[in-house]
Protein backbone atom coordinates (compact mmCIF):
# COMPACT_ATOMS: atom_id res chain seq x y z
CA UNK A 1 0.00 0.00 0.00
CA UNK A 2 1.27 3.45 -0.90
CA UNK A 3 0.78 5.90 1.96
CA UNK A 4 1.54 9.59 2.00
CA UNK A 5 1.92 11.28 5.36
CA UNK A 6 1.17 14.99 5.36
CA UNK A 7 1.48 16.91 8.60
CA UNK A 8 -0.13 20.04 7.30
CA UNK A 9 1.10 22.75 9.65
CA UNK A 10 0.26 26.42 9.30
CA UNK A 11 3.95 27.31 9.11
CA UNK A 12 5.52 24.32 7.40
CA UNK A 13 4.04 21.20 5.85
CA UNK A 14 5.87 17.98 6.60
CA UNK A 15 5.29 15.56 3.75
CA UNK A 16 6.64 12.29 2.40
CA UNK A 17 5.87 8.66 1.59
CA UNK A 18 5.65 6.24 4.49
CA UNK A 19 8.71 4.55 3.01
CA UNK A 20 10.81 7.72 3.26
CA UNK A 21 13.36 8.13 6.05
CA UNK A 22 12.77 11.85 6.47
CA UNK A 23 9.92 14.12 5.44
CA UNK A 24 10.37 17.17 3.32
CA UNK A 25 9.71 20.22 5.44
CA UNK A 26 8.37 22.91 3.15
CA UNK A 27 6.94 26.34 3.91
CA UNK A 28 3.17 26.05 3.62
CA UNK A 29 2.69 29.28 1.70
CA UNK A 30 3.12 31.08 -1.59
CA UNK A 31 5.76 33.80 -1.60
CA UNK A 32 6.32 36.83 -3.75
CA UNK A 33 9.73 38.45 -3.87
CA UNK A 34 10.22 42.18 -4.18
CA UNK A 35 12.93 41.89 -6.79
CA UNK A 36 11.63 38.92 -8.77
CA UNK A 37 8.63 40.12 -10.66
CA UNK A 38 8.30 37.37 -13.21
CA UNK A 39 7.14 34.56 -10.96
CA UNK A 40 5.83 33.49 -7.60
CA UNK A 41 7.41 30.89 -5.32
CA UNK A 42 5.25 27.98 -4.20
CA UNK A 43 6.30 26.21 -1.00
CA UNK A 44 9.95 25.21 -1.10
CA UNK A 45 10.54 26.90 -4.45
CA UNK A 46 11.62 29.80 -2.27
CA UNK A 47 14.99 28.00 -2.08
CA UNK A 48 15.51 29.08 -5.68
CA UNK A 49 15.14 32.73 -4.73
CA UNK A 50 18.43 34.53 -4.20
CA UNK A 51 17.14 37.77 -2.73
CA UNK A 52 15.02 37.00 0.31
CA UNK A 53 14.49 40.57 1.45
CA UNK A 54 10.99 42.00 1.61
CA UNK A 55 9.21 38.71 0.95
CA UNK A 56 5.45 38.90 0.70
CA UNK A 57 3.56 35.92 2.07
CA UNK A 58 0.27 34.40 1.00
CA UNK A 59 -0.68 32.07 3.84
CA UNK A 60 -3.41 29.43 3.64
CA UNK A 61 -3.94 29.50 7.40
CA UNK A 62 -5.45 32.21 9.54
CA UNK A 63 -5.20 31.89 13.32
CA UNK A 64 -4.32 28.24 12.86
CA UNK A 65 -7.23 27.24 10.64
CA UNK A 66 -7.28 26.61 6.92
CA UNK A 67 -9.22 29.40 5.25
CA UNK A 68 -7.42 30.23 2.03
CA UNK A 69 -7.90 27.11 -0.09
CA UNK A 70 -6.72 28.73 -3.27
CA UNK A 71 -3.23 29.12 -1.83
CA UNK A 72 -3.29 25.74 -0.11
CA UNK A 73 -4.26 24.03 -3.35
CA UNK A 74 -1.32 25.58 -5.17
CA UNK A 75 1.03 24.27 -2.50
CA UNK A 76 -0.52 20.80 -2.52
CA UNK A 77 -0.52 20.64 -6.31
CA UNK A 78 3.18 21.42 -6.20
CA UNK A 79 3.78 18.85 -3.44
CA UNK A 80 1.87 15.98 -5.02
CA UNK A 81 2.84 16.89 -8.56
CA UNK A 82 5.71 16.07 -10.84
CA UNK A 83 8.21 18.33 -9.08
CA UNK A 84 8.06 16.41 -5.88
CA UNK A 85 6.15 13.29 -4.89
CA UNK A 86 4.60 12.33 -8.24
CA UNK A 87 1.58 10.80 -6.58
CA UNK A 88 -0.57 8.22 -8.33
CA UNK A 89 -3.77 9.24 -6.54
CA UNK A 90 -5.77 6.15 -7.46
CA UNK A 91 -3.29 3.96 -5.64
CA UNK A 92 -2.35 6.26 -2.79
CA UNK A 93 -3.74 6.69 0.70
CA UNK A 94 -3.07 9.79 2.74
CA UNK A 95 -2.68 10.57 6.43
CA UNK A 96 -3.56 14.23 6.85
CA UNK A 97 -3.34 16.26 10.04
CA UNK A 98 -5.59 19.13 11.03
CA UNK A 99 -5.93 21.49 14.01
CA UNK A 100 -7.89 20.67 17.18
CA UNK A 101 -11.57 21.53 17.09
CA UNK A 102 -11.35 22.07 13.36
CA UNK A 103 -14.51 23.69 12.03
CA UNK A 104 -17.10 21.51 10.38
CA UNK A 105 -17.10 23.40 7.09
CA UNK A 106 -13.31 23.12 6.82
CA UNK A 107 -13.49 19.38 7.47
CA UNK A 108 -16.12 18.93 4.78
CA UNK A 109 -14.13 20.98 2.32
CA UNK A 110 -11.08 18.87 3.15
CA UNK A 111 -13.02 15.65 2.47
CA UNK A 112 -14.27 16.97 -0.84
CA UNK A 113 -10.86 18.10 -2.00
CA UNK A 114 -9.09 14.89 -1.00
CA UNK A 115 -11.72 12.51 -2.36
CA UNK A 116 -13.24 14.40 -5.26
CA UNK A 117 -10.56 16.76 -6.47
CA UNK A 118 -7.45 14.64 -5.95
CA UNK A 119 -9.33 11.31 -5.81
CA UNK A 120 -7.19 9.62 -3.20
CA UNK A 121 -7.87 5.94 -2.70
CA UNK A 122 -8.37 6.38 1.03
CA UNK A 123 -7.90 9.01 3.68
CA UNK A 124 -7.17 9.27 7.40
CA UNK A 125 -7.63 12.68 8.97
CA UNK A 126 -6.16 13.09 12.44
CA UNK A 127 -4.39 15.49 14.81
CA UNK A 128 -0.62 15.89 14.83
CA UNK A 129 -0.44 15.12 18.55
CA UNK A 130 -2.20 11.79 17.98
CA UNK A 131 0.64 10.74 15.70
CA UNK A 132 3.22 12.07 18.19
CA UNK A 133 1.84 10.16 21.15
CA UNK A 134 1.43 7.07 18.96
CA UNK A 135 5.13 7.16 18.13
CA UNK A 136 6.04 7.80 21.75
CA UNK A 137 4.06 4.75 22.84
CA UNK A 138 5.53 2.57 20.10
CA UNK A 139 9.09 3.54 20.92
CA UNK A 140 8.58 3.00 24.63
CA UNK A 141 8.44 -0.63 25.68
CA UNK A 142 6.66 0.16 28.96
CA UNK A 143 3.70 1.56 27.07
CA UNK A 144 2.53 4.24 29.50
CA UNK A 145 -1.20 4.75 30.05
CA UNK A 146 -1.29 8.47 29.45
CA UNK A 147 0.58 11.01 27.37
CA UNK A 148 0.38 14.76 27.70
CA UNK A 149 1.41 16.43 24.47
CA UNK A 150 2.50 20.04 24.17
CA UNK A 151 2.17 21.08 20.56
CA UNK A 152 3.65 24.55 20.20
CA UNK A 153 3.58 25.59 16.59
CA UNK A 154 3.28 28.55 14.26
CA UNK A 155 -0.17 29.87 15.13
CA UNK A 156 -0.72 28.76 18.70
CA UNK A 157 0.20 26.21 21.35
CA UNK A 158 -2.00 23.37 22.54
CA UNK A 159 -1.91 21.08 25.55
CA UNK A 160 -3.50 17.75 24.61
CA UNK A 161 -3.89 14.87 27.09
CA UNK A 162 -4.26 11.29 25.83
CA UNK A 163 -5.47 8.23 27.70
CA UNK A 164 -4.62 4.90 26.03
CA UNK A 165 -4.37 6.61 22.66
CA UNK A 166 -7.69 8.42 23.03
CA UNK A 167 -7.60 12.18 23.35
CA UNK A 168 -9.47 13.85 26.18
CA UNK A 169 -11.10 16.66 24.24
CA UNK A 170 -12.59 18.36 27.29
CA UNK A 171 -9.14 18.89 28.78
CA UNK A 172 -7.47 20.38 25.69
CA UNK A 173 -6.16 23.89 26.29
CA UNK A 174 -5.05 26.47 23.78
CA UNK A 175 -2.72 29.44 24.23
CA UNK A 176 -2.68 31.97 21.42
CA UNK A 177 1.08 32.30 21.27
CA UNK A 178 3.05 30.66 18.48
CA UNK A 179 6.08 31.22 16.32
CA UNK A 180 4.33 33.72 14.09
CA UNK A 181 3.41 35.97 16.99
CA UNK A 182 6.94 35.81 18.38
CA UNK A 183 8.45 36.78 15.04
CA UNK A 184 5.97 39.61 14.52
CA UNK A 185 6.60 40.92 18.01
CA UNK A 186 10.35 40.81 17.49
CA UNK A 187 9.91 42.66 14.19
CA UNK A 188 7.90 45.33 15.94
CA UNK A 189 10.37 45.74 18.80
CA UNK A 190 13.43 45.98 16.54
CA UNK A 191 11.67 48.38 14.19
CA UNK A 192 10.95 50.73 17.08
CA UNK A 193 14.25 50.49 18.89
CA UNK A 194 16.77 50.16 16.07
CA UNK A 195 16.05 49.60 12.44
CA UNK A 196 12.89 49.45 10.35
CA UNK A 197 12.45 45.74 9.58
CA UNK A 198 8.67 45.42 9.43
CA UNK A 199 8.88 44.10 5.85
CA UNK A 200 11.53 41.51 6.65
CA UNK A 201 9.56 38.65 8.13
CA UNK A 202 11.88 36.03 6.66
CA UNK A 203 15.09 37.63 7.90
CA UNK A 204 13.74 38.36 11.37
CA UNK A 205 12.42 34.82 11.70
CA UNK A 206 15.94 33.58 11.01
CA UNK A 207 17.26 36.08 13.54
CA UNK A 208 14.80 34.72 16.09
CA UNK A 209 15.88 31.15 15.43
CA UNK A 210 19.56 32.11 15.61
CA UNK A 211 19.78 34.21 18.75
CA UNK A 212 16.62 33.96 20.86
CA UNK A 213 16.50 31.66 23.86
CA UNK A 214 14.23 30.86 26.76
CA UNK A 215 15.61 32.23 29.99
CA UNK A 216 15.71 30.02 33.05
CA UNK A 217 16.36 33.01 35.32
CA UNK A 218 14.38 35.80 33.74
CA UNK A 219 14.87 38.64 36.21
CA UNK A 220 18.54 37.82 36.66
CA UNK A 221 19.08 37.89 32.90
CA UNK A 222 17.37 41.29 32.85
CA UNK A 223 19.95 42.53 35.36
CA UNK A 224 22.80 41.12 33.28
CA UNK A 225 21.38 42.75 30.16
CA UNK A 226 21.51 46.13 31.93
CA UNK A 227 25.26 45.90 32.44
CA UNK A 228 27.78 47.48 30.15
CA UNK A 229 30.85 46.10 28.44
CA UNK A 230 32.10 42.58 28.96
CA UNK A 231 29.93 42.07 32.05
CA UNK A 232 26.93 41.91 29.76
CA UNK A 233 27.01 38.31 28.58
CA UNK A 234 23.59 38.50 26.93
CA UNK A 235 24.36 41.07 24.27
CA UNK A 236 24.96 39.81 20.72
CA UNK A 237 25.54 41.49 17.38
CA UNK A 238 23.64 40.02 14.47
CA UNK A 239 24.88 40.80 11.00
CA UNK A 240 22.00 41.16 8.57
CA UNK A 241 22.17 39.64 5.11
CA UNK A 242 22.38 42.01 2.15
CA UNK A 243 21.92 39.21 -0.42
CA UNK A 244 24.91 40.31 -2.46
CA UNK A 245 27.92 39.54 -0.25
CA UNK A 246 26.19 38.11 2.80
CA UNK A 247 23.56 35.56 1.83
CA UNK A 248 22.47 34.68 5.32
CA UNK A 249 22.44 36.59 8.59
CA UNK A 250 24.75 35.37 11.35
CA UNK A 251 25.68 36.00 14.97
CA UNK A 252 29.02 37.61 15.48
CA UNK A 253 31.30 35.74 17.94
CA UNK A 254 31.26 37.14 21.49
CA UNK A 255 34.87 38.41 21.27
CA UNK A 256 33.93 40.62 18.34
CA UNK A 257 30.71 41.95 19.83
CA UNK A 258 31.34 45.67 19.77
CA UNK A 259 27.99 47.03 18.70
CA UNK A 260 29.63 48.66 15.69
CA UNK A 261 29.10 47.68 12.10
CA UNK A 262 32.15 46.86 10.00
CA UNK A 263 32.36 48.13 6.46
CA UNK A 264 29.02 48.28 4.72
CA UNK A 265 27.23 45.69 6.75
CA UNK A 266 24.17 46.36 8.88
CA UNK A 267 23.87 44.94 12.34
CA UNK A 268 21.15 44.54 14.91
CA UNK A 269 22.06 44.58 18.59
CA UNK A 270 20.20 41.93 20.45
CA UNK A 271 20.07 42.49 24.18
CA UNK A 272 17.04 41.77 26.37
CA UNK A 273 15.09 40.97 23.20
CA UNK A 274 16.93 37.66 23.08
CA UNK A 275 14.95 36.20 25.98
CA UNK A 276 12.07 38.67 26.44
CA UNK A 277 10.49 37.62 23.13
CA UNK A 278 10.21 33.83 23.77
CA UNK A 279 9.07 34.74 27.28
CA UNK A 280 5.64 35.43 25.78
CA UNK A 281 5.06 31.68 25.64
CA UNK A 282 5.18 31.64 29.43
CA UNK A 283 3.67 35.08 30.05
CA UNK A 284 1.32 36.15 27.24
CA UNK A 285 0.20 39.00 29.51
CA UNK A 286 3.54 40.74 28.87
CA UNK A 287 2.06 42.06 25.62
CA UNK A 288 -1.50 42.27 26.90
CA UNK A 289 -2.84 38.88 25.80
CA UNK A 290 -5.06 37.94 28.71
CA UNK A 291 -4.31 34.24 28.77
CA UNK A 292 -2.29 31.79 30.80
CA UNK A 293 1.22 30.84 29.80
CA UNK A 294 1.82 27.34 28.47
CA UNK A 295 3.00 25.93 31.80
CA UNK A 296 -0.01 27.26 33.66
CA UNK A 297 -2.30 26.03 30.88
CA UNK A 298 -0.72 22.60 31.22
CA UNK A 299 -1.61 22.52 34.91
CA UNK A 300 -5.14 23.71 34.13
CA UNK A 301 -5.48 20.88 31.64
CA UNK A 302 -4.13 18.30 34.09
CA UNK A 303 -6.39 19.54 36.88
CA UNK A 304 -9.45 19.12 34.69
CA UNK A 305 -8.79 15.38 34.36
CA UNK A 306 -9.60 12.79 37.01
CA UNK A 307 -7.38 12.45 40.10
CA UNK A 308 -6.14 9.00 39.10
CA UNK A 309 -4.92 10.21 35.75
CA UNK A 310 -2.96 13.25 36.90
CA UNK A 311 0.28 11.56 38.02
CA UNK A 312 0.34 9.53 34.80
CA UNK A 313 -0.05 12.62 32.65
CA UNK A 314 2.63 14.57 34.52
CA UNK A 315 4.90 11.56 34.33
CA UNK A 316 4.81 11.46 30.55
CA UNK A 317 4.94 14.89 28.92
CA UNK A 318 5.94 15.09 25.27
CA UNK A 319 7.19 18.34 23.75
CA UNK A 320 6.59 18.89 20.03
CA UNK A 321 6.43 21.79 17.62
CA UNK A 322 8.97 24.30 16.36
CA UNK A 323 9.10 26.49 19.47
CA UNK A 324 10.63 23.58 21.40
CA UNK A 325 13.81 24.23 19.39
CA UNK A 326 14.42 27.41 21.40
CA UNK A 327 17.46 26.81 23.62
CA UNK A 328 16.48 26.43 27.26
CA UNK A 329 12.86 25.65 26.44
CA UNK A 330 12.71 22.22 28.03
CA UNK A 331 14.56 23.28 31.17
CA UNK A 332 12.36 26.33 31.71
CA UNK A 333 9.16 24.42 30.98
CA UNK A 334 10.18 21.78 33.47
CA UNK A 335 10.96 24.40 36.11
CA UNK A 336 7.65 26.16 35.55
CA UNK A 337 5.58 22.97 35.69
CA UNK A 338 7.53 21.66 38.66
CA UNK A 339 6.84 24.83 40.62
CA UNK A 340 3.09 24.49 40.08
CA UNK A 341 2.53 20.74 40.25
CA UNK A 342 1.91 18.89 43.53
CA UNK A 343 5.26 17.87 45.03
CA UNK A 344 4.35 14.19 45.37
CA UNK A 345 4.11 13.74 41.61
CA UNK A 346 7.12 12.99 39.48
CA UNK A 347 7.40 15.01 36.32
CA UNK A 348 9.09 13.63 33.27
CA UNK A 349 9.45 15.35 29.93
CA UNK A 350 10.63 14.14 26.56
CA UNK A 351 12.00 16.46 23.94
CA UNK A 352 12.42 14.53 20.69
CA UNK A 353 15.52 15.08 18.61
CA UNK A 354 13.39 16.73 15.98
CA UNK A 355 10.23 18.15 17.56
CA UNK A 356 8.99 19.46 14.20
CA UNK A 357 8.97 16.18 12.27
CA UNK A 358 8.10 13.95 15.23
CA UNK A 359 4.41 13.78 14.31
CA UNK A 360 5.28 12.93 10.73
CA UNK A 361 7.52 10.08 11.91
CA UNK A 362 4.59 8.88 14.01
CA UNK A 363 2.45 8.91 10.88
CA UNK A 364 4.95 6.69 9.14
CA UNK A 365 4.83 4.18 12.01
CA UNK A 366 1.05 4.29 12.05
CA UNK A 367 0.97 3.45 8.35
CA UNK A 368 2.69 0.16 9.20
CA UNK A 369 0.30 -0.65 12.04
CA UNK A 370 -1.73 -3.82 11.57
CA UNK A 371 -4.95 -1.93 12.33
CA UNK A 372 -4.14 0.97 10.07
CA UNK A 373 -6.43 -0.04 7.23
CA UNK A 374 -9.42 -0.13 9.56
CA UNK A 375 -8.90 3.53 10.40
CA UNK A 376 -9.08 4.69 6.80
CA UNK A 377 -12.11 5.86 4.87
CA UNK A 378 -12.01 4.74 1.26
CA UNK A 379 -13.28 6.70 -1.69
CA UNK A 380 -16.07 4.17 -2.27
CA UNK A 381 -17.21 4.59 1.32
CA UNK A 382 -17.16 8.36 0.97
CA UNK A 383 -19.17 8.21 -2.22
CA UNK A 384 -21.68 5.91 -0.51
CA UNK A 385 -22.07 7.58 2.89
CA UNK A 386 -20.70 11.10 2.40
CA UNK A 387 -19.32 13.22 5.21
CA UNK A 388 -21.00 11.18 7.92
CA UNK A 389 -18.65 8.26 7.66
CA UNK A 390 -15.70 10.62 8.14
CA UNK A 391 -17.38 12.11 11.21
CA UNK A 392 -17.85 8.64 12.63
CA UNK A 393 -14.43 7.27 11.89
CA UNK A 394 -12.09 10.18 12.44
CA UNK A 395 -11.51 11.33 15.98
CA UNK A 396 -10.74 14.98 15.26
Amino acid at each position, binding site marked *: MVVIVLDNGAGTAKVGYSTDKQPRVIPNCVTKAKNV*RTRIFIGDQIDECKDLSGLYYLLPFQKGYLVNWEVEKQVWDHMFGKDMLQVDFNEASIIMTEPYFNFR*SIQEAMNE*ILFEEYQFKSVLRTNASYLSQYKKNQDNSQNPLCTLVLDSGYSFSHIVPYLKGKKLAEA*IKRVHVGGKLLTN*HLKEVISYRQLMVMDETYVINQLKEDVCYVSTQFMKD*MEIARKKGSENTVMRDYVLPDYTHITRGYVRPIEETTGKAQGNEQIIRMNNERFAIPELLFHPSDV*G*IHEMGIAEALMLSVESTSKEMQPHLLGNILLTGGNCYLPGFEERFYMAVRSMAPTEFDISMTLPKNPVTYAWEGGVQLANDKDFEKMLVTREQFEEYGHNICLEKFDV
Partner: protein
Amino acid sequence: MADKRESGRVKELQQRRILDEPARRRRQRKALEALEQDNFQDDPHADLKMSKKAPKFEESIEIGNIGQISSAKKKKKNRTEYFKYRLKKSFAALIEEEQLLSTDPPNYFSASTPPSKFPERHFCAVCGFPSSYICVSCGSRYCSVKCLGTHQDTRCLKWTA
Protein backbone atom coordinates in the same frame (compact mmCIF):
# COMPACT_ATOMS: atom_id res chain seq x y z
CA MET B 1 -3.69 91.03 37.54
CA ALA B 2 -4.65 87.97 39.55
CA ASP B 3 -5.67 85.92 36.56
CA LYS B 4 -2.19 86.23 35.07
CA ARG B 5 -0.60 84.52 37.98
CA GLU B 6 -0.60 80.88 37.14
CA SER B 7 1.75 77.96 37.36
CA GLY B 8 3.37 76.89 34.12
CA ARG B 9 3.27 73.31 35.23
CA VAL B 10 -0.46 73.35 35.93
CA LYS B 11 -1.14 75.05 32.61
CA GLU B 12 0.85 72.42 30.77
CA LEU B 13 -1.00 69.68 32.56
CA GLN B 14 -4.37 71.11 31.60
CA GLN B 15 -3.42 71.31 27.96
CA ARG B 16 -2.18 67.77 27.84
CA ARG B 17 -4.49 65.42 26.05
CA ILE B 18 -5.26 62.28 27.95
CA LEU B 19 -6.59 59.18 26.27
CA ASP B 20 -9.62 57.70 28.00
CA GLU B 21 -10.01 54.04 28.86
CA PRO B 22 -11.84 52.93 25.68
CA ALA B 23 -9.26 54.63 23.48
CA ARG B 24 -6.47 52.89 25.36
CA ARG B 25 -8.18 49.55 24.95
CA ARG B 26 -8.66 50.24 21.26
CA ARG B 27 -4.96 50.93 20.92
CA GLN B 28 -4.10 47.75 22.76
CA ARG B 29 -6.41 45.72 20.54
CA LYS B 30 -4.88 47.22 17.42
CA ALA B 31 -1.40 46.36 18.64
CA LEU B 32 -2.48 42.77 19.22
CA GLU B 33 -4.11 42.53 15.80
CA ALA B 34 -0.85 43.73 14.27
CA LEU B 35 0.85 40.71 15.83
CA GLU B 36 -1.37 38.43 13.71
CA GLN B 37 -0.66 40.19 10.44
CA ASP B 38 0.80 38.12 7.61
CA ASN B 39 2.53 41.04 5.90
CA PHE B 40 3.25 44.62 6.79
CA GLN B 41 3.96 45.83 3.28
CA ASP B 42 1.65 45.78 0.28
CA ASP B 43 1.74 43.10 -2.37
CA PRO B 44 4.83 43.91 -4.47
CA HIS B 45 3.18 42.34 -7.52
CA ALA B 46 -0.11 44.17 -7.11
CA ASP B 47 0.54 46.40 -10.10
CA LEU B 48 1.52 43.51 -12.37
CA LYS B 49 -1.02 42.48 -14.94
CA MET B 50 -0.64 38.90 -16.02
CA SER B 51 -2.09 38.09 -19.37
CA LYS B 52 -4.38 35.13 -18.81
CA LYS B 53 -4.85 34.38 -22.46
CA ALA B 54 -1.25 33.67 -23.27
CA PRO B 55 -0.59 29.91 -23.21
CA LYS B 56 1.67 28.70 -20.45
CA PHE B 57 4.80 26.72 -21.25
CA GLU B 58 3.51 23.45 -19.89
CA GLU B 59 0.38 23.55 -22.03
CA SER B 60 0.59 21.81 -25.36
CA ILE B 61 -2.06 22.43 -27.93
CA GLU B 62 -2.61 19.64 -30.39
CA ILE B 63 -4.65 20.48 -33.41
CA GLY B 64 -7.66 18.23 -33.69
CA ASN B 65 -8.00 17.79 -29.98
CA ILE B 66 -8.72 21.41 -29.28
CA GLY B 67 -12.41 20.81 -28.61
CA GLN B 68 -11.70 18.08 -26.08
CA ILE B 69 -9.01 19.98 -24.31
CA SER B 70 -11.02 23.10 -23.92
CA SER B 71 -14.04 21.26 -22.53
CA ALA B 72 -11.89 19.39 -20.04
CA LYS B 73 -10.22 22.61 -19.13
CA LYS B 74 -13.55 24.33 -18.75
CA LYS B 75 -14.78 21.62 -16.42
CA LYS B 76 -11.67 21.90 -14.33
CA LYS B 77 -12.02 25.64 -14.24
CA ASN B 78 -15.66 25.42 -13.15
CA ARG B 79 -14.63 23.09 -10.39
CA THR B 80 -11.94 25.47 -9.19
CA GLU B 81 -14.40 28.34 -9.32
CA TYR B 82 -16.80 26.24 -7.29
CA PHE B 83 -14.22 25.63 -4.60
CA LYS B 84 -13.27 29.26 -4.54
CA TYR B 85 -16.86 30.24 -3.99
CA ARG B 86 -17.92 27.46 -1.68
CA LEU B 87 -14.88 27.55 0.56
CA LYS B 88 -14.23 31.20 0.87
CA LYS B 89 -14.78 31.87 4.55
CA SER B 90 -12.84 34.16 6.78
CA PHE B 91 -11.83 33.10 10.25
CA ALA B 92 -14.38 35.50 11.76
CA ALA B 93 -17.15 33.88 9.70
CA LEU B 94 -16.06 30.44 10.86
CA ILE B 95 -16.17 31.51 14.50
CA GLU B 96 -19.63 32.96 14.01
CA GLU B 97 -20.82 29.77 12.37
CA GLU B 98 -19.42 27.74 15.24
CA GLN B 99 -21.22 29.97 17.74
CA LEU B 100 -24.49 29.52 15.89
CA LEU B 101 -24.08 25.76 15.89
CA SER B 102 -23.56 26.03 19.66
CA THR B 103 -22.36 22.49 20.07
CA ASP B 104 -21.86 21.23 23.60
CA PRO B 105 -18.36 21.56 24.98
CA PRO B 106 -15.71 20.42 24.36
CA ASN B 107 -15.41 22.77 21.44
CA TYR B 108 -13.22 25.60 20.15
CA PHE B 109 -14.36 27.96 22.87
CA SER B 110 -13.95 25.57 25.78
CA ALA B 111 -10.28 25.11 24.91
CA SER B 112 -9.35 28.73 25.49
CA THR B 113 -7.50 29.58 28.67
CA PRO B 114 -8.63 32.19 31.22
CA PRO B 115 -6.30 35.01 32.33
CA SER B 116 -3.32 33.93 34.37
CA LYS B 117 -3.64 33.88 38.13
CA PHE B 118 -0.22 35.46 38.44
CA PRO B 119 0.09 39.24 38.51
CA GLU B 120 0.98 40.94 35.26
CA ARG B 121 4.54 42.09 34.78
CA HIS B 122 5.32 45.41 33.20
CA PHE B 123 8.06 46.39 30.85
CA CYS B 124 9.20 49.70 29.48
CA ALA B 125 7.71 50.29 26.04
CA VAL B 126 10.98 51.90 24.94
CA CYS B 127 13.83 49.77 26.26
CA GLY B 128 12.11 46.57 27.40
CA PHE B 129 13.43 46.54 30.95
CA PRO B 130 11.11 46.25 33.95
CA SER B 131 9.18 49.48 34.40
CA SER B 132 7.44 51.14 37.31
CA TYR B 133 5.76 54.16 35.73
CA ILE B 134 2.82 54.83 33.46
CA CYS B 135 2.63 57.58 30.87
CA VAL B 136 -0.16 59.93 31.98
CA SER B 137 -1.33 60.64 28.46
CA CYS B 138 -1.58 57.21 26.87
CA GLY B 139 -1.02 54.62 29.59
CA SER B 140 2.15 53.12 28.12
CA ARG B 141 4.84 51.92 30.47
CA TYR B 142 8.21 53.57 30.90
CA CYS B 143 11.14 53.10 33.23
CA SER B 144 13.09 56.36 33.33
CA VAL B 145 12.95 60.03 32.42
CA LYS B 146 15.11 59.27 29.39
CA CYS B 147 12.72 56.63 28.10
CA LEU B 148 9.73 58.88 28.82
CA GLY B 149 11.31 61.56 26.63
CA THR B 150 11.83 59.08 23.79
CA HIS B 151 8.31 57.79 24.22
CA GLN B 152 6.76 61.25 24.04
CA ASP B 153 8.83 62.19 21.01
CA THR B 154 8.05 59.04 19.06
CA ARG B 155 5.01 57.09 20.09
CA CYS B 156 2.86 58.67 22.78
CA LEU B 157 0.11 60.42 20.84
CA LYS B 158 1.76 60.36 17.44
CA TRP B 159 -0.64 57.92 15.91
CA THR B 160 -3.67 58.33 18.04
CA ALA B 161 -6.57 56.05 17.30
